[in-house]
């Protein structure tokens, strides 16, 4: 039976850095994880216990995977689509659909191998190109010794992460970039940005994983990465015609709310699924994924109430997303009070950024990819170092040091930002100077639905 070893990095804090006596104070489910990991770096796959799959885990991971797809289609498509003007609605939906399709194929053809096959510190290997050698009974390791899940489920679960991350990016450059450019960008970006960062953070031989950084469900890999790429995209694509001059209110906040709801619903697949098993660890991730966005909703709306007098639906939805983004890296290790804190912090800072800073900078990050995923991801990733502390109700080990863990977190964030910035710039430049990024200005005025797709969203 083939087995692969993939470990999410958050457990690594219990890895080489901790003495085994310490594990006595950990809750059982963390103990198992810790013990596995203590054994890991030294023993490698040779000594690894034979993996056995539990159908309960498989059932949950199948479900979690489906939930992440729900986040993208129709979730993110609607969330984003509702925020643009009517004339660009279909272009957003098409781009999200097209990116998802292309990401799925890139993933099975090469990106999974580059991200999760054993390789260097920066990139995986090539032995799993085209998923070769992976059968129905090939298992991937989970956090618990001897427990595996079918590798194809792991492939599919991670595939949805790659797809949503790529789809998130374009939120900053909608209403002006070409469909073809977006598709080409996705192929490049998943290859030279996403796969390496996923490898560094989540593969057991990855650089950042080796540092012991915590990233339960993708604070760096997904959110910071997408946010930074989006920001870079704005520099390459430029502002929309009429930015800060014409009114560009969201054409359907109803779509946006449907999308926000589906994002929240699907995020349980994202976060609780990242536990890889149907255990109390998933339950911790689940409860945190309820409270952080709830706190985000209320914090953002409260801030609006104070600042502009009226709490808005878009504010509430934005607060939910900010809370979800922030709790993502901490979902498995934070306590509920910490999660509330993260949700509030992320909502307030993001509100300040997208409501004030962004306009001052005249930054046309159209749907606030950087403002919410980037900023929220940074707050969450660094905050994970804090909320994991047992004194704050977190599920870190005894003797957990906020200072040292937070430093590691900050280093991880720095690497993710740098890699994403440079890599994304390369990808955007490549597309810009080959296919071109933007549609013509007449086409932009007319709307991308007609000019790029020859369709109209509504014919009431």
């Amino acid at each position, binding site marked *: 039976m083939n087995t692969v070893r993939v470990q999410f990095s958050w457990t690594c804090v219990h890895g080489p850095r901790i003495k085994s006596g310490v594990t006595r104070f950990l809750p059982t489910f963390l103990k198992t994880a810790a013990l596995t990991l203590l054994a890991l770096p030294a023993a490698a796959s040779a000594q690894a216990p034979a993996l056995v799959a539990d159908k309960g885990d498989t059932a949950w991971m199948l479900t979690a995977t489906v939930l992440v797809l729900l986040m993208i289609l129709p979730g993110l498509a609607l969330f984003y689509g509702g925020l643009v003007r009517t004339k660009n609605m279909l272009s957003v939906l098409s781009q999200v659909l097209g990116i998802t399709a292309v990401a799925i194929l890139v993933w099975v053809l090469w990106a999974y191998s580059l991200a999760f096959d054993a390789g260097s510190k920066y990139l995986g290997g090539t032995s799993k190109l085209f998923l070769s050698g992976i059968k129905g009974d090939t298992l991937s390791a989970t956090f618990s010794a001897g427990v595996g899940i079918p590798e194809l489920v792991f492939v599919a679960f991670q595939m949805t992460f790659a797809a949503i991350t790529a789809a998130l990016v374009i939120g900053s450059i909608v209403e002006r970039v070409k469909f073809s450019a977006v598709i080409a960008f996705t192929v490049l970006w998943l290859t030279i940005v996403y796969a390496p960062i996923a490898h560094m953070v989540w593969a057991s031989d990855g650089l950042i994983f080796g540092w012991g950084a915590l990233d339960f469900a993708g604070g760096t890999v997904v959110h910071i990465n997408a946010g930074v790429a989006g920001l870079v995209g704005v520099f390459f694509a430029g502002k929309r015609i009429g930015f800060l001059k014409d*009114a*560009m*209110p*969201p054409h359907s906040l109803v779509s946006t709310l449907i999308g926000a709801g589906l994002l929240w619903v699907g995020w349980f697949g994202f976060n609780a699924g990242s536990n890889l098993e149907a255990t109390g660890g998933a339950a911790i991730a689940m409860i945190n994924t309820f409270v952080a966005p709830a706190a985000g909703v209320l914090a953002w709306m409260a801030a*609006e109430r104070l600042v*502009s007098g*009226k709490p*808005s639906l*878009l*504010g509430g939805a*934005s607060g939910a997303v900010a809370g979800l983004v922030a709790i993502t890296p901490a979902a498995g290790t934070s306590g509920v009070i910490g999660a509330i804190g993260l949700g509030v912090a992320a909502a307030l800072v993001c*509100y300040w950024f*997208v*409501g*004030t800073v*962004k*306009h001052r900078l005249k930054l046309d990050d159209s749907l*606030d990819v950087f403002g919410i995923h980037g900023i929220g991801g940074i707050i969450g990733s660094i905050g994970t170092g804090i909320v994991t502390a047992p004194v704050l109700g977190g599920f870190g080990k005894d003797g957990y040091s906020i200072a040292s863990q937070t430093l590691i977190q900050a280093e991880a964030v720095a690497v993710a930002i740098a890699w994403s910035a440079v890599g994304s710039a390369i990808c955007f430049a490549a597309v810009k100077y080959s296919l071109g990024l933007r549609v013509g200005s007449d086409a932009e005025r007319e709307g991308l639905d007609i000019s790029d797709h020859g369709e109209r969203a509504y014919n009431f």
Partner: protein
Amino acid sequence: MKLIIAIIKPYKLDEVRDALSAVGVQGMTVSEVRGFGRQKGQTEIYRGAEYTTSLIPKVRLEIAVPEGLAPTVLETIQHTAQTGTIGDGKLFVLDLEQAVRIRTGETDDSAL
């Protein structure tokens, strides 16, 4: 005949229609429009970006009436649609040269 165009506040539509029926108006054509005028629009804020719509939803009535009925109609609308607050709207009167009922081919006053 006269063609009277009335721009009124949307929520006054039902009342105006009923009042006009009462004075003998048998038909009218209604459209949704947006009005620009003294009335200031609401400020809407979306993620910190403020939009003040100077274009405010109004309802536009187009009513063809026989010469004689015109003054009554004007008065009726002015009465019913008035709230006394800014943005109550306008009445415009044009001369209507000819009218035809498509169904029957009747013309002018009997077409209305």
